[in-house]
């Protein structure tokens, strides 16, 4: 399971960065989304994946004796997902506005030299 996730993270990061380096704005956006998802899975992986072991201490034991599913990374991911939702929604609207203004999906058209602002 871990190995699979590691490959998945690598794939998400590399494809995200590759897409960000393209000239198209839509690809830039998809790249950001993929990177964000890669980071989320990375957090998930970092918190020891343990199936069916809730982080509840048994009544007779004072401390954890076995490996348990760490709840902190999951709450971190939830927070990160909500935040990235907001950011991505904003980015989509922004790109749409830019497309309406410039009439082009090409990032190279965004380099007009504004002499007087």
């Amino acid at each position, binding site marked *: 399971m871990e190995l699979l996730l590691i490959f998945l993270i690598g794939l998400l990061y590399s494809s995200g960065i590759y897409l*960000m380096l393209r000239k198209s*704005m839509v690809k*830039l956006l998809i790249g*950001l989304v993929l*990177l*964000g998802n890669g*980071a989320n899975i*990375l*957090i998930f*992986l*970092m*918190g020891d994946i343990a199936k069916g072991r809730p982080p509840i201490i048994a009544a007779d034991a004072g401390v954890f004796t076995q490996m348990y599913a*760490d709840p*902190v*990374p999951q709450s*971190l991911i939830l*927070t*990160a997902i909500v*935040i990235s939702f*907001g*950011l991505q929604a*904003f*980015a989509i609207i*922004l*790109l749409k*506005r*830019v497309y309406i*203004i*410039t009439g082009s999906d090409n*990032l190279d058209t*965004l*380099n*007009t030299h*504004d*002499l*007087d*602002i």
Partner: protein
Amino acid sequence: MTDNYLILPIFSHLVTAVLLIFAWRHVNIQRFISLCGHVFTLALALQLFNKTWKAGILTMQAGGWKAPFGITFVSDTFSATLVVLTAIAGLAVGIFSVVGVSKARMQFGYFAISHFLLMGLNGAFLTGDIFNLYVWFEIVIISSFVLMTLGGKKPQMEGAIKYVTMNMLASTIFLTAIAILYGLTGTLNMADLSVKVATIEKQELVNVTALLFFIGFGIKSAVFPLYFWLPSSYHTPPAAIAATFGGLLTKMGIYAMLRTFTLIFIPDPFMQNVLITCAILTMFTGAMGALNKTSIRRMFSYLIVCHIGYLIGGLGLHSQVALTGVIFYLIHDIVIKTNLFLSSGLIHKIRGSTDIRRLGGLYADYPKLSLLMAIIFFSLVGIPPLSGFWPKIDLFKASLDANAYVLLAAYIMASFFTLYIIAKMWSEVFWKPLPKRVEDLNDFDKLPFFKQAMLVFPVIGLALVSLYIGLGAEKIYTISERIAANMIDTDYYIRAVLKK
């Protein structure tokens, strides 16, 4: 010492912002509420500083969860100082915005969003939890995205695309670094991290994580290879917004970097080299970039980059003297950069342009205003006894102590170029006769006296703060020295948070 007071500077901005949302279309009510919010927060911030100065360090555990488990809020002298500076800069920008920001922007929530932004900044300064820091960062950047794009003109949109992309990338890298750090240590509390990172056997992994943090914060604070989004976006929004960005946003990145690299990752020789090299290149490229620009706001944007190098260099030296200099410079820089952008807004109001080829004769037309701006520019350059001069003594001395002669040369060169750029700007904008042109774009004289005062007053106020920093350097120096001492002796922070 546990004290729930330290949440108040965050809370007051939140309340103000929510109240502002209720007054959505009523511009005058919004102006009033916003000003009240700023004044109130400044009072709270000063009180917080006072309390922190007496108690040494204040902590608050959210929900009563003890330190390594819950989210901790910590106000040490460093945080409290920055909260005060944020409140001062916020108040100045708030007063300037009353007249300086267009009605259309206010109707689309300019004031509410700017209060959310300041709330995020205060939160970032006061939190003692690294993931919580990430959340505050996100609050700040989403607010700054909205502020940057309000208005929706083409150049603004072009700047915004670069700004949004780089900031989202920085956040992702920051999040990646947090994930790896959590995997290594199993904690998120900064004090606890400081203890646990030192005990990790695989220090190579720690170094890699530290570099990820450096890249994440470096993008936000515009360090050498990662700064290019700043000059291509900071000149696009109106002056009031640019002043908040220029004065406070990059400094948030610097704050995060200072915090992580003095508390969690104490720089080893390799990391010190990385920091110092980046600092030298940042100063160099910033100065070179400012040289050939014709828009004064672009010049100021590059000067921000140039002076970020001062701070990173001092962090790289990592000694008591260097850090004292860094803190003093940070205090000076927040005030002065906010003021620079406000005065560029004032110049724009007067001449209808910020391009030096269309400017001139300001000294002949507005001698008093020009002398006021001269104080700002002299402080920026660091002419003794004004505020930019004192921290440089420490920074120069620290680089001599550490035999970092290249860094010293870079410091001197950057100071010299700043002087040259400001001198060039002064002669072009203030002394050169105004180029002949047909239309008169002076909006400033058409305003009633009250509105003119609202534009000039914050510039005067911040100039007075700069003068105070320069002339009352002894007090600021005492504060900086104490902050630097707490940075070197991390035990103090750790003990206060973990209650050991």
